[in-house]
């Protein structure tokens, strides 16, 4: 593929990277082949130069190794005091990340990029501290030796024979904005060492004998120089591409490493990384999970290998298949892999004849994919697994196998006794049956034991000479061999079938668990029930205590945990959760960041932001960290996050819809109100101006008519404005209900008195029993309710139709009813009549603004009562409302001069 013009996607990615770098701090690494070449010295000199240029420079951590000339350079630079960490009784000084973040200088000096922090620090490694500094926009100067580069780690170990554990992922180094090589010839370095300029004398002697041998130094120097040269080369290529310099480019390479459970897998991964960076290729690491059982140590090794791959910037995948070779090749083809890296088979040649190794089978079917075989040298053995050992199965299976053989022997003995004519070959069949049974039931080991014991028993009891192991006839040897082979074949097959079945069951369980979660997440509504479902499913599937903390709108973690709140009660645990919420990365138990935590913290990541944090504290830790379980957990978290995001978006969409609806309603309300306001104003203005006009001659009757119109319209306007004010006050809660115990009749009386003019000529029946108890109400508001209901009845019924006001005592409340005998309500209007601005017939003139009943409903609700409208079958509408009888009515104590009263004055 020739790139005549820059690929827009690549350029965009670079621009984005550049933009990110603007916000991020710049990282400069002073790089050398070994200690003592003068990295720290060069770094401090550079820092002084920056300070002289006016930059705010702080020394966060510097390792002077007691060298006076280096120490002298720190004078005049601000130094952050180190953090004191007590670990197992020893006080260690560490770089204080929080102080550095708080101080927030423009440039900070943090020596020794590869340093491992004391246990209990926030991050396991110093490079993670530096990442955090960079992420908040602080520039960092640091130092690094070549042997600490992760992908060169094994090469260095090969050269020097010393395994360096403090490594820095290549990605960190690749992302450095600047790398300055500090070079010194090996002879000069050795000279400095001897002069005691690098280490103290006794340390120096030790170092000279081991690490600082001249051969080592030459090799390390070459490594360092080559690494820098590679980088320069890449920069050159970048430059050429950016400027579209015509050149033939290699086709896009993709490298895949197939790793197994062997201890050399890490080496394969590193090799792949080196190859990938030289070829500028994407790379991935694949592990094929087969039905075969693996020991916990093997599983943990796989997990570590995959994690290492991710740390080195590769992609890790776990595939499932029965045959490793075909699964690998199929996946490689699907991903357009051009180079496949595998470990060299280590099995002896004869095994290869019996059963081809993965590598040779891949070689046969890989077609056009290049296959690289790399010697799987034993890597440094990892420290003993942190997660206990899986319990082994009992020995009872072996005893059972022996019992089966004994049973067979008895059977054969019985047959032999009664039918001595039966050939020995047929007697052997009984043993074969027993061995087959054991193989199917108890697995390989017991079946091998069974076949051995069977052969021995047969020989002992039934082959002449009887009751001895001597074999007189050699042809029985064939019988033994066949029996053993049959036992092995059957047990192997059975074991394999059972393992496949087991694996299938486990897969089915995982799928079922996933399905159950996704179904429930799809079914439930609302964030709270989703989180609740997620907590429940995660805790049952992974046998763990689970808590979920959510971020609020501002991105701060809400302290209210759903699930098991005891998990995050301790401030230290909460701190981890907050860190995860802020950075959107996994931390806590079993990870490199804040690994001392009791629980594993995973971010609930959505497209734009971190929604929250899931804390998982498994009962048995190693089980959670099995690759398939861990991936399942990640899938669970992912599923939960996307469900939450979906819920959030749904809520937002609903809010938008409601807002549009409200907006629409508001504009229709506005037009209704403005119409209702303008009509009376038009009448008043018209009438008043014609009365004022001296040109218009009006007779007395007309003048009176116009004045009457003004008064009536003013009255109408008053009512409308009053209603508008009332509904606004009621809805905004500006009206306080002042309840006082009083007879309802008095309020009814007040309403009737106020409406006496309008009610003239109407029959109003008041049916209130004298025994009706006092009600706690706000008389002004309830009078308003009655007024509105009466006005409503007057408006919508013919003038001769009677109106009834009824009140009844109910249990704990009083029911009040205003009934008319008008046309009743239109169907379906029973609830709508209480809506604001609802009018029976909007086109009929002279009707109200549709507020009266809405005000009634608001007042009744404010009293804690209910209101309803009923259309009567025989015509007429009934409006009913209840007033709760809360509390006890106040006692009517006898008063001074009342008969029987106690005299108090």
């Amino acid at each position, binding site marked *: 593929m020739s790139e005549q013009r820059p690929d827009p996607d690549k350029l965009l990615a670079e621009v984005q990277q550049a933009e990110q770098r603007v916000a991020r701090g710049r990282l400069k690494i002073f790089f050398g082949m070994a200690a003592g070449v003068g990295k720290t010295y060069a770094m401090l000199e550079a820092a002084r130069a920056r300070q002289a240029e006016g930059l705010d420079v702080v020394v966060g951590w510097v390792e002077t190794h007691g060298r006076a000339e280096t120490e002298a350079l720190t004078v005049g630079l601000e130094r952050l005091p180190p953090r004191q960490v007590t670990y197992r009784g020893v006080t260690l000084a560490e770089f204080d990340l929080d102080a550095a973040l708080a101080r927030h200088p423009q440039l900070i000096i943090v020596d020794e990029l590869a340093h491992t922090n004391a246990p209990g620090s926030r991050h396991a490694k110093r490079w993670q501290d530096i990442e955090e500094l960079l992420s908040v926009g602080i520039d960092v100067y640091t130092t690094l030796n070549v042997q600490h580069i992760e992908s060169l780690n094994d090469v260095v170990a090969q050269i020097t024979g010393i395994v360096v554990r403090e490594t820095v992922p290549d990605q960190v180094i690749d992302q450095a904005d600047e790398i300055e090589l500090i070079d010194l010839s090996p002879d000069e370095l050795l000279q400095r060492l001897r002069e005691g300029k690098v280490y103290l004398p006794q340390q120096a002697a030790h170092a000279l004998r081991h690490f600082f041998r001249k051969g080592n130094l030459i090799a390390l120097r070459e490594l360092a120089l080559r690494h820098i040269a590679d980088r320069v080369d890449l920069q050159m290529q970048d430059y050429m591409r950016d400027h579209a310099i015509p050149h033939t480019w290699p086709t896009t390479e993709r490298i895949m490493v197939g790793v197994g459970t062997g201890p050399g897998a890490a080496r394969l991964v590193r090799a792949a990384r080196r190859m990938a960076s030289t070829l500028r290729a994407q790379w991935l690491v694949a592990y094929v999970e087969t039905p075969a059982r693996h020991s916990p140590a093997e599983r943990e090794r796989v997990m570590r290998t995959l994690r290492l791959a991710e740390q080195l910037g590769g992609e890790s995948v776990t595939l499932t298949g029965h045959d490793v070779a075909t699964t690998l090749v199929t996946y490689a083809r699907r991903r357009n892999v051009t180079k496949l890296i595998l470990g060299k088979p280590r099995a002896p040649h004869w095994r290869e004849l019996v059963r081809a190794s993965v590598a040779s089978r891949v070689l046969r079917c890989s077609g056009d994919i290049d296959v690289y075989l790399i010697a799987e040298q034993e890597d440094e053995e990892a420290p003993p697994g942190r997660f206990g050992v899986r319990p082994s199965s009992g020995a009872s299976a072996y005893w059972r196998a022996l019992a089966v053989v004994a049973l067979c022997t008895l059977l054969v003995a019985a047959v032999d006794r009664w039918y001595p004519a039966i050939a020995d070959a047929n007697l052997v069949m009984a043993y074969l049956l027993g061995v087959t049974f054991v193989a199917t039931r108890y697995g390989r080991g017991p079946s091998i034991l069974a076949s051995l014991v069977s052969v021995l028993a047969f020989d002992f009891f039934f082959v002449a000479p009887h009751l001895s192991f001597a074999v007189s006839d050699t042809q029985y040897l064939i019988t033994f061999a066949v029996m053993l082979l049959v036992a092995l074949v059957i047990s192997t097959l059975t074991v394999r079938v059972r393992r496949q079945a087991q694996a299938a069951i486990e897969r089915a369980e995982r799928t079922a668990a996933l399905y159950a979660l996704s179904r429930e997440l799809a079914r439930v509504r609302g964030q709270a029930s989703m989180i609740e479902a997620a907590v429940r499913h995660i805790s049952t599937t992974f046998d763990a205590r689970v808590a979920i903390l959510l971020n609020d709108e501002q991105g701060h973690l809400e302290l209210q945990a759903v699930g098991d709140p005891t998990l995050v009660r301790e401030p230290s645990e909460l701190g981890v959760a907050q860190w995860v919420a802020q950075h959107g990365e996994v931390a806590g138990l079993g990870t490199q960041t804040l690994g001392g935590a009791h629980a594993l913290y995973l971010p609930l990541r959505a497209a734009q932001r971190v929604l929250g944090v899931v804390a998982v504290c498994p009962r048995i830790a190693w089980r959670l960290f099995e690759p398939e379980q861990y991936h399942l957990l990640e899938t669970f978290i992912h599923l939960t996050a996307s469900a939450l995001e979906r819920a959030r978006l749904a809520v937002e969409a609903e809010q938008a819809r409601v807002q549009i609806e409200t907006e629409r309603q508001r504009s229709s309300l506005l037009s209704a109100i403005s119409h209702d306001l303008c009509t009376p104003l038009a009448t008043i203005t018209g009438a008043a101006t014609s009365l004022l006009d001296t040109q218009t001659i009006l007779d007395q009757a007309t003048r009176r008519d116009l004045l009457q119109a003004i008064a009536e319209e003013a009255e109408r306007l008053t009512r409308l404005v009053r209603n508008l*004010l009332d509904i606004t006050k009621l809805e905004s809660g500006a009206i306080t209900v002042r309840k006082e115990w009083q007879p309802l*009749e*008095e309020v009814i*009386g*007040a309403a009737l008195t106020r409406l006496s003019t309008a009610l003239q000529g109407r029959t109003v029946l008041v049916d209130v029993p004298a025994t009706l108890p*006092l009600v706690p109400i706000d*008389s002004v508001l309830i009078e308003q309710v009655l007024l509105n209901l009466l006005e409503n009845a007057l408006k919508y019924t013919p003038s001769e139709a009677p109106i009834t*006001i009824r009140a009844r005592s109910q249990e704990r409340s009083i029911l009040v009813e205003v009934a008319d005998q008008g046309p009743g309500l239109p169907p379906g209007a029973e609830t709508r009549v209480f809506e604001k601005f609802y009018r029976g017939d909007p086109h009929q003139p002279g009707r109200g603004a549709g507020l009266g009943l809405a005000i009634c409903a608001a007042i009744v609700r404010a009293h804690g009562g209910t209101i309803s409208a009923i259309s009567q079958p025989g015509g007429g509408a009934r409006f009913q409302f209840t007033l709760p009888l809360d509390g006890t009515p106040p006692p009517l104590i006898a*008063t001074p001069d009342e008969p029987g009263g106690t005299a108090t*004055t």
Partner: protein
Amino acid sequence: MNGQSPRILIIEDEPQIRRFLRATLAAHGYQALEASSAEQGLRDAARYLPDLVILDLGLPDADGLEVTHRLREWSSVPIIVLSARGQEQDKVAALDQGADDYLTKPFGMGELLARIRVALRHATQAQASTHPVFEVDGLQVDLAARRVWLHGREIHLTPIEYKLLAVLVRYAGKVVTHRQLLREVWGPAYEQETHYVRVYMAQLRQKLEDDSARPTYLITEPGVGYRMREGQS
């Protein structure tokens, strides 16, 4: 009232309201004085010694309650307060401070003139002796003999009922707040027990009104108190 037409001081910040009040009052033979702020109102009250004050509760420079209070410190001039709707508490407070009556805006001029008449009459009666027999539309109350007749039939009232009726009759035509009634009938210790008044009022209505749900003598002023219909003299 020294033979001249009564002087009425209007303390109201809205010029349009002052304008129609002044016109109508003048047309009814009253002499109208205007003040647009509380400060000016208090000054004018002291200077011109009006026979009645119409006071808006919503003045910009001072609380209407404050004005009532300060007027009552030295004068017993009848005060009619004007208030907006929903200011029930302010109205009651003003009445308890000593205001004589209230009107809710918007109001008809007929109503205002009736209130002014009642207030002015009570003011003059306070100086002269109170009429011993109150009579309105078939109801007779003899305050000296403590006897009540309805359509010529004597009605027997309990002492509390009678005391309640007597207080209302004394202020006939004027609103009397719950608190005022409680203080005068039961004593100052019972000022909060509004349900006493309401219960005895209901009993009184049972005895005096034809239809207690539609009272004609004892009118309810919701949230404020009661008013006895104005007597015929």
